[in-house]
């Protein structure tokens, strides 16, 4: 029995190796697509906001504020002073947003009159505008603290000078420290498995469909005319597509990892998720093939389901929010991708992705069981 299973699996493998389109779809395409994405976003999603400071007030206070800011800034945000008019500065393209300290600001602040800072941004870059607005709100809060202290000191009969000095230099009650998240993530470790799974649906679907195809072409009856049981044939076909799937996806993993430096995470976990994903895809393909009425119908259903799963599973959408982020968990592709991402980006170990491994394997085994029973009836007319 097992010798026959292996013979039939090996025969399928030999024919797969001879088919160049399998090589393109299973290995070349996922790597190529991942490399393109990697090249496009390899340096990370960058953010660079330059905020201009326009001091139209020209007082000691405004100068101090402007100087304080231009010394600040950090990764992704830069402050620099603006001499020209705010609108002109934005038009020049050197600034993404401008904070204006308007004329009379310090007088208004000191006298307790209504005071205001202006932020000018560009409609096409709302993020930069929001960032400047948030910074301005911080400046406004500091000015407010200073003048509240001043007024309160005066009314309480206290020397205002030292009190203000203490207020503006005091350590805020909330201190902020910056830490670093170690470890990196390559977008290739997302797109390579995602695209590989899409194409595996096609390849494994073809493999499953070859059971019906071989019946039509007469090679299946010929196999069954030998002392081979139908169960061996179905099992052999299944083992064959599993090996094709696991080997090709493992190659995609090893090539993107060792060749292009995209780390997919804990190797044991990665391999098990690959196996589980292939089992799920094979099971679904067998189910479709078993339930389809004709070979053409099986082909159409496999293609459509593969594409829908890939799209809904987030294959082409890195980090989508909204509908897709919920939808993807209802697809095997989405579950597998979640596991891959946890291994690569959350540095999870096997145990943490065990739920997905079990879920995918369960889906695969369940679908395969139903599909194989249906196929057995089809094979033995």
């Amino acid at each position, binding site marked *: 029995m097992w010798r026959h299973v292996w013979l039939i699996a090996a025969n399928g493998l030999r024919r797969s190796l001879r088919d160049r389109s399998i090589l393109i779809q299973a290995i070349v395409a996922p790597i190529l697509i991942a490399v393109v994405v990697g090249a496009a976003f390899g340096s990370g999603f960058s953010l660079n906001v330059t905020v201009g400071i326009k001091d139209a007030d020209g007082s000691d206070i405004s100068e101090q504020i402007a100087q304080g800011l231009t010394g600040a800034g950090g990764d992704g945000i830069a402050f620099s002073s603006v001499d020209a008019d705010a609108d002109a500065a934005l038009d020049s393209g050197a600034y993404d947003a401008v904070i204006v300290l308007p004329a009379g600001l310090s007088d208004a602040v000191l006298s307790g009159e209504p005071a205001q800072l202006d932020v000018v941004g560009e409609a096409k870059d709302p993020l930069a505008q929001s960032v400047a607005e948030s910074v301005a709100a911080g400046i406004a809060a500091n000015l407010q603290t200073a003048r509240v202290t001043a007024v309160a000191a005066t009314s309480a009969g206290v020397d205002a000078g030292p009190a203000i000095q203490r207020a503006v230099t005091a350590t805020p009650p909330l201190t902020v420290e910056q830490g670093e998240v170690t470890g990196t993530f390559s977008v290739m470790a997302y797109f390579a498995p995602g695209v590989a799974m899409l194409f595996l649906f096609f390849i494994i679907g073809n493999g499953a469909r070859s059971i019906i195809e071989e019946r039509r072409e007469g090679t299946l009856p010929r196999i069954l005319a030998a*002392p081979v049981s139908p169960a061996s044939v179905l099992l052999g076909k299944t083992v064959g597509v599993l090996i094709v799937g696991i080997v090709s996806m493992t190659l995609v993993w090893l090539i993107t990892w060792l060749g292009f430096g995209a780390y997919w995470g804990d190797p044991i976990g990665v391999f098990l998720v690959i196996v589980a994903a292939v089992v799920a895809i094979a099971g679904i393909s067998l189910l479709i093939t078993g339930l389809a009425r004709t070979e053409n119908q099986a082909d159409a259903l496999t293609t459509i389901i593969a594409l829908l799963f890939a799209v809904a599973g987030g294959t082409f959408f890195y980090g989508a929010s909204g509908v897709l982020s919920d939808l993807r968990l209802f697809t095997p592709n989405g579950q597998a991708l979640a596991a891959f991402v946890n291994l690569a980006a959350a540095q999870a170990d096997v145990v943490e992705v065990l739920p997905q491994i079990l879920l995918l394997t369960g889906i695969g085994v369940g679908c395969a069981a139903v599909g194989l029973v249906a196929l057995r009836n089809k094979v033995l007319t």
Partner: protein
Amino acid sequence: MAAPVLQVTDLVRRFGDHTAVDRVSFQIQPGETYGLLGPNGAGKTTTISMIAGLLTPDSGEVELLGEPLTSGRKSLIGLVPQDIALYPDLSALENLQFFGKLQNLHGEHLKQRIAHVLDVVGLTDRAKDRIDTYSGGMKRRANIAVGLLHEPQLLILDEPTVGVDPQSRNSILEAVDVLGGSGMAVLYTTHYMEEAERLCDRVGIIDSGRLIAEGTRDELMQRLGENSTVTFRVNGGAEQTHAWRVELAGMPGVSGVQGEDGQVAVVAANGPSLIAPAVQAAQSHGLDVVGVEVAEPDLEAVFLHLTGKALRD
């Protein structure tokens, strides 16, 4: 006496309301070549599929060498399906290796057997080429080679010459003749009367799922009795010809009429005496009889006699 290689008893298979095979029984002795002759759709392939264990009979029995067919005993049979049941993307050698291993052949023995069957079908030179580069006749021969590989007791050939050029057909027939002579039992289905006459020791005539006659060529000819086939060549319209045929079929002693425009064959007891009334009838239908031929009886005539219709339409 030794058990027959194949004993088929009351085999029945229905597909829905249609009874494809209806109580078919026959046996094949060692070394015998048995022809199953019948038109397309007569139930030949269904019968063969049940013998080879690909299809479960609704009732009836298949025994090989006196014992029922089980999965393990399938190796007694070498099946050569009607279609080219080979992997087109693999070479003949690879196909033979695969199917040979499924028949539990291996190692040196498998190698020898492959070399032998390639020699038998004359494909030794092209063994390493992919099947899809072969001509139609070569594919047929490779198809037969796979059936011979494991030295079966019974070789089943399902219409092996359909769609084959005359030259390849001849070499296939010669090969079958040789195999039959070598002591292997052969079950050969065809709708070509000449092949059955040339190759088979005994012939079973099958029509609409029933085995309606069986025997050696001579035995079957006797079924024809004094009947002979008279072929008329006529000029005239299709309608008139049809009307004439209907009249012919009603004449005394006529057991079968076949053919349409231009040529009509009639099987009748004492055929020559039919000629005069037939020609007269033709003229009354406005047909012009341009030739008359009284033929030697053959299996075609037997089939026509038994079923009233032609083997091929």
